[in-house]
């Protein structure tokens, strides 16, 4: 389960050390925008050591690497892939080939270190107009791709428009990303809400993203994690209804009924699928985090 993804600057030891106690389902150890060009080498070594020595219990690790147009991305992968982070986030991904280039290099590093191929997954960051237009091709480019992620800040710079709290300027991109991801069968994550102090705004933005179909949302501040987790968790009413649906289906099967209804509404396949997803999330949230030891 991944509702929230919290960015942690890759060259900041006090944040790296505490990444797993901030409540986020995933943390993104950032080697890209949060690190100045002169400190790329230091951040890469620090993140590698953090992956090697810190446990990050119950928290998925994503490493955001530098774009393939730079001299840094292969060095980033050389350092972190041997430590098998859960996912790599390639940046400025604009087409399927960008994904293939990164995936092929990861495969080389995996092979070099005796790691089974496709152990490390990908969550491409789509943050250009071209990337949005190619979202489905990116999402289905490679079997490593487990999710796609919308980057609103760079996208609006590329669109030559102002980034606003209302987010009208990224409405098309959000819809297109969700549709592309669902068509490709992968998860999809929304851009961070960048006003750290506006908690009401964060809730509204997250609720809107959820209503469009996003799986979860990224955050640049630990203060936003709780709100994101709350919005992207099923409500108690959702959970109760899901259990009612599954119980109704069970009883109908016992009675040999083909068509069943609950509260006057026919229960069809999409409702059952949704109920199963809600129960799966309930287990993940309330059933405790699985220990990887």
């Amino acid at each position, binding site marked *: 389960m991944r509702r929230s993804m919290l960015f942690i600057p890759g060259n900041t*030891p006090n944040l790296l*050390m505490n990444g797993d106690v901030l409540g986020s389902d995933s943390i993104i150890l950032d080697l890209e925008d949060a690190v100045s060009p002169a400190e790329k*080498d*230091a951040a890469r*070594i*620090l993140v590698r*050591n*953090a992956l090697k*020595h810190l446990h990050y219990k119950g928290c998925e690790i994503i490493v955001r690497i530098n774009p393939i147009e730079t001299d840094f991305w292969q060095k980033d992968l050389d350092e972190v892939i041997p430590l098998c982070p859960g996912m790599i986030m390639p940046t400025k991904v604009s087409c399927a080939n960008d994904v293939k280039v990164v995936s092929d290099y990861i495969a080389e590093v995996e092979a070099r270190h005796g790691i089974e191929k496709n152990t490390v997954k990908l969550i491409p960051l789509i943050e250009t107009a071209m990337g949005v237009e190619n979202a489905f091709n990116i999402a289905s480019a490679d079997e490593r791709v487990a999710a796609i992620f919308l980057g609103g800040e760079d996208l609006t710079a590329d669109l030559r428009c102002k980034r606003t709290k209302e987010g009208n300027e990224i409405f098309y991109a959000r819809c297109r990303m969700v549709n592309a991801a669902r068509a490709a069968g992968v998860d999809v994550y929304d851009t961070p809400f960048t006003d750290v102090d506006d908690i009401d705004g964060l809730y509204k933005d997250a609720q809107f993203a959820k209503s469009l179909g996003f799986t979860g949302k990224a955050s640049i501040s630990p203060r936003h994690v709780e709100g994101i987790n709350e919005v992207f968790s099923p409500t108690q009413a959702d959970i109760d209804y899901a259990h009612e649906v599954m119980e109704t289906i069970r009883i109908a099967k016992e009675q040999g009924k083909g068509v069943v209804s609950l509260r006057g509404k026919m229960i069809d396949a999409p409702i059952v699928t949704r109920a199963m997803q809600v129960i799966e999330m309930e287990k993940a949230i309330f059933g405790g985090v699985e220990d990887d030891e």
Partner: protein
Amino acid sequence: MKINTSAVAGTLESSDVYVKVEPCETLEIEIESVVYNQFAEQIEATIKAVLAELGVESGKVSVNDKGAIDCVIQARVETAVKRAGGEK
């Protein structure tokens, strides 16, 4: 690896360590730390282990530690040594 020139890594922020390496005929290590009394020996051992792993036999290493854990000290020493050796 040889220390050809002076180089630094890290910061003076909490939980970090500022490392400076310089060319020197012998191996010298200077430690300043907010937890000097409790951890100076361990910090020195950590630094020596990193230098040995990188094949550094001589040089002056000065650290100003602000409570960094081992893996941070290791990272900052490695970065400073690689920068001093011309690697980036």
